[in-house]
């Protein structure tokens, strides 16, 4: 589990870490929209430079980003194969037997790869620099205006923060159940189809049973401490926007505007 970097918080002391989660989430959204404008290679170069600056400011290492990108590579290879067979436009590059490779197949894949890389850079910067709880608070605050149209923003935030709180416990629990069933001769790596189905059942059923037990305990504990969904409550953690947060938003908005301009020009 130690190898997963996508979405993991890295406790460092950097200006990006100190920013208001709301500013960071909004900034990320603006940047993600910007990526989807066909602003050409110049546009992508600018966005790449901006994302790289953010990563440097956040004191994150390039290998960390690379590790987050790695799982995406399988997808890209798959995409390249599909494109190779179905995209027959652009200049023919080379021919093997009856099969010809066209330039657009390469360009299309590269195009998506660049977008994907940018998305991973931006989202990873957000998740690596924002504590899960702060993220939840940020989401809650940003969703607040939608409360008027019936979005249960507080419940959503509570749901996310509890999920985040219990993920490490559930991972521990899973590992314990795996070990317990391995001790009973379960082989998770090999075996016939029916054996593997049983092996998976022997993990999933206990995991569900224990998750439900946990949920019941938790519901009791929350209720006993006066939690009632939908009721008014105060909040301990208060978020505050400062100068640097506004600068971030302005920069991101400017980048989006730039991308729109670039894409309209071409």
């Amino acid at each position, binding site marked *: 589990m130690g190898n997963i970097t996508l979405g993991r918080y890295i406790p460092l002391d950097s200006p990006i870490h100190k920013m208001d989660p709301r500013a960071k989430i909004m900034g990320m959204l603006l940047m993600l929209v910007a990526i989807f404008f066909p602003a050409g290679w110049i546009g992508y170069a600018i966005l790449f430079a901006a994302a790289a600056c953010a990563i440097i400011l956040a004191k994150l290492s390039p290998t960390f980003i690379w590790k987050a990108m790695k799982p995406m590579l399988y997808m890209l290879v798959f995409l390249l194969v599909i494109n190779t067979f179905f995209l027959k436009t652009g200049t023919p590059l080379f021919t093997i037997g009856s099969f010809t490779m066209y330039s657009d197949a390469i360009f299309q894949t590269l195009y998506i790869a660049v977008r994907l890389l940018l998305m991973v850079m931006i989202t990873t910067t957000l998740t690596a620099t924002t*504590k899960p*709880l702060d993220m939840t608070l940020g989401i809650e605050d940003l969703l607040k205006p939608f409360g008027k149209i019936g979005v249960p923003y507080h419940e959503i935030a509570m749901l996310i923060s509890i999920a985040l709180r219990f993920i490490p*416990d559930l991972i521990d629990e899973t590992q314990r159940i795996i070990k317990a069933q391995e001790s009973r001769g379960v082989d998770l790596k090999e075996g016939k189809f029916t054996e593997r189905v049983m092996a998976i059942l022997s993990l999933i059923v206990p995991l569900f049973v224990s998750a439900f037990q946990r949920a019941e305990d938790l519901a*009791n*504990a*929350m209720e006993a401490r006066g939690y009632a969904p939908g009721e008014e409550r*105060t909040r*301990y953690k208060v978020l505050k926007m400062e100068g640097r947060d506004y600068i971030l938003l302005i920069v991101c908005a400017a980048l989006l505007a730039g991308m729109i301009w670039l894409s309209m020009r071409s």
Partner: protein
Amino acid sequence: MKMIEVKNLTFSYDDTKTTIDDISFSVEEGSYTTIVGHNGSGKSTVAKLLAGLLEKKSGEIYLGGLELTAANLTKIRSLIGIVFQNPDNQFIGSTVRDDIAFGLENHCVPQPEMDEIINTNAARVKMTKYLDHEPTRLSGGQKQRVAIAGVLAMKPKILIFDEATSMLDPQGKDEIKKVIRKLHEESSLTILSITHDIDEVAQSDHVIALNKGKIAMSGTPHEVFTNEKRLKEIQLDIPFALKFRNALARKGVKTDAHITMEGLVKELCRSDSNM
């Protein structure tokens, strides 16, 4: 004044079996009561009924003179705090600080007042050093102390421990027992603790022994835990001091019944010098 008063309380999870069968008892304000009984005797169900987490089938529950009904559940909940068995499943916040704040947020305590309340109550359970720790970095005993602080922060009048030490290691058990004793000595809280621990029972004022959903015995720890015949009937452990006293009697040395070893040894010394 009677802080808890239960009259003819009955409850069942399903129709096949009555879990709590027509029990009545009362608990004095500021007292420390323990509830004992083997697993399945209905101990934890009583705790959940008192906290309004389960709905009684019949009977009456009064807390601080107020009857527990669906209508005044919120009011009752602010009177009563409960610490559960599993240290992991009641830690709601992502840090100690946030967890103590959780109850305050629910009770709409204004934000500027929260820090002081959090600090005071963390200090009461000696967790000040750990305020910014995440639960994964705490021991079971520390998590239970946080749970106690979280409950204390809401200024309850009644504190219930539902087997709060049973999943802890010996260090953790000790920590929690010390905290409970200190709270009993230093505050006017009414404490109700469900436990298997004979040492904890010995430090309480009053014991209620449950068996098959009924009250089998009730009295001082000494009264309950020297009634050997009844203890055996309801499948409870006999304190070592009592077993030893019986062994001595078989060898011809008669002493009073004791539930603590210290008490027994003291008497032996007295009879020793008197003789």
